[in-house]
């Protein structure tokens, strides 16, 4: 187990180095000159040369990369060209917003998607199965930026049940501890804040949950079907085990390994895919920060954000791999 863990952590480091290479070179091979960008079009040639020298832009690319990598190891991603904060600080401020949204969406997707998959998978071909699977096909085909707007229109405007965007009502501030409004509200212990933060989270979470929900339901169903036809399940039935127990102990448990893979992959995708949802609901999350930085060519923040998201993505995948051992004793032993 220790050796396995060590090799996986080694892989993680390799992937991150690869990602840093990709991010650095895409940012530096691009047309457009950072010095001109910083000083504006009217800067003199002498000023530009001086700034390029200061920034190390007159060095060769490999030297620049080595320098960049060394700085990153020390946690220094440069300074945001827009906010003048450390780039990593901007990323870390925005991250909890995205994390809260992604976790809420994933929880919702699991809580609804797995039962749907079980219902459909235990009654293949039934009306329920066909109904639910058609619904999930609609779910995966839905452009979520459109779904979000439609939900806003229905629940925010026509019915007027829920707020139409933002993190918290104006004038109602949560003391920042984790940066996640719901958790901070709970820490503050004020029911009013907790209620408000949940109301603001509801629509974005439902929107972002749609696609993972549909995928989790579909994979749960097909894994349940595959497992149900195996010999050990027939044996369990033949020896008179109650159906509920057969489903839970022999079908569901074995079907869960691939489902957990999908769930883990989805968390990584949700963290980066939240950008569309954040845009619709005006949430100051990491995805929105990335897009705004791209549009204003704030490269230090783009680099910091990209490396950070890739890091979290790879880390989540590692954790998912490790949980297999808990579910499947065969993997634990080997």
């Amino acid at each position, binding site marked *: 187990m220790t050796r396995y863990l060590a090799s996986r952590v080694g892989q993680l480091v390799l992937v991150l180095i690869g990602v840093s290479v990709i991010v650095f070179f895409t*940012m530096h091979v691009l047309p457009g000159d950072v010095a001109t960008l910083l000083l504006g079009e009217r800067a003199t040639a002498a000023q530009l040369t001086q700034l390029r020298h200061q920034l190390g832009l007159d060095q060769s690319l490999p030297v620049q990369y080595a320098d960049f990598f060394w700085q990153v190891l020390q946690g220094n991603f440069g300074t945001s060209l827009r906010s003048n904060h450390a780039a990593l600080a901007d990323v870390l401020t925005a991250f909890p917003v995205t994390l809260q949204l992604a976790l809420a969406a994933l929880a919702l997707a699991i809580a609804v998607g797995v039962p749907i998959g079980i219902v459909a998978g235990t009654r293949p071909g039934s009306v329920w199965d066909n109904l639910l699977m058609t619904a999930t096909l609609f779910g995966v*085909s839905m452009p979520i930026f*459109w779904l979000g707007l439609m939900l806003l*229109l229905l629940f925010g405007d026509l019915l007027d049940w829920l707020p139409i965007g933002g993190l918290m009502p104006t004038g109602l501030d949560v003391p920042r501890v984790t940066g996640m409004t719901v958790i901070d509200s709970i820490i503050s212990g004020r029911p009013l804040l907790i209620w408000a933060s949940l109301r603001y989270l509801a629509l974005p979470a439902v929107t972002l949950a749609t696609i993972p929900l549909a995928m989790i339901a579909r994979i749960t169903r097909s894994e349940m079907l595959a497992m149900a*036809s195996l010999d050990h399940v027939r044996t369990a039935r033949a020896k008179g085990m109650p159906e509920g127990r057969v489903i839970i102990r022999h079908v569901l448990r074995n079907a869960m390994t691939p489902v957990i893979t999908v769930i883990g992959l989805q968390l990584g*995708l949700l963290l980066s895919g939240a*950008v569309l949802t954040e845009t619709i609901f005006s949430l100051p999350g990491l995805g929105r920060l990335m897009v705004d930085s791209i549009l204003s060519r704030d490269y230090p923040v783009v680099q910091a954000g990209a490396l950070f998201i890739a890091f979290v993505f790879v880390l989540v995948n590692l954790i998912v791999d490790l949980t297999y051992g808990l579910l499947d004793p065969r993997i634990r032993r080997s």
Partner: protein
Amino acid sequence: MTTEIVDPLPATRRPKGIRRVLRRVSASVGLAITVIFLLLTVLAPLVAPYDPYDQDLSSALSPPSWIHLLGADQYGRDMLSRVLYGTRTALLAVVVADGLALAVGCTLGLLSGFFGGWVEAVIMRIVDMVLAFPYLLLALIIVAALGPGLTHSMIAIGIVYTPQYARLLRGQVLSVRQSDYVRASRALGASRLRLMLRHVLPNSVTPILVMATLQAGSVVVETAGLSFLGLGAQPPSPDWGALLADGQSYFLTAWWIATFPGLAIFLVVLGFNLLGDALRDHFDPRRSA
């Protein structure tokens, strides 16, 4: 005590008939949507009641009516015409992005199968690396490097989907290599190039077709998504994602601007997904759930 009547067929077999019919219905719906979509890309100028760029400020933000069936936007441009012309951008995205991914991915897969050894190792490591990226993030980084715009966003999406094809083709190489007739033709002295072009490629047409159809839907959503974020097609071009972004600023007063382009994306993606599922079930019954 009554004994239960035992069904002669196992539970999983019984409803096959209903499922098959439903499958057929969903396949025809998928095919119908895809065909209509393709027809509209060609017929847009004939079917559209107005020029998609024509501004008519007197009918700005007018709701759906007999004059403007899907309403008009903030400049009085006819939404029906803009949505119809949007099929062209969507098809362009499918052709360019999905085509790029297919061409590059399949070439890489064949190359790694052809040369094997370190070429294969390098190509596959790069493919793994790209797959280790969350795909939307990768697309964002590429657009960041190239600059916003429709062409760049299509290239970005194309690159993001390339590894899937490379993996598919390499899998085909590995499985075809093991088959008896390939061993036989190798024993007869067939070159590796001949093996790739005569045996691997023709054997891969079906899975490539299935994958290309399933990816087409994703490509439409992703390019529209990038346009929605302001990184893809720029106004005033009638791209569904850009139309939605436009509509977002007005959606509380003029719901129709955002609603219909989104509905169009949904239908086209649904069509590709239904068709792709049907093709997969047809050609590879083992993989259908």
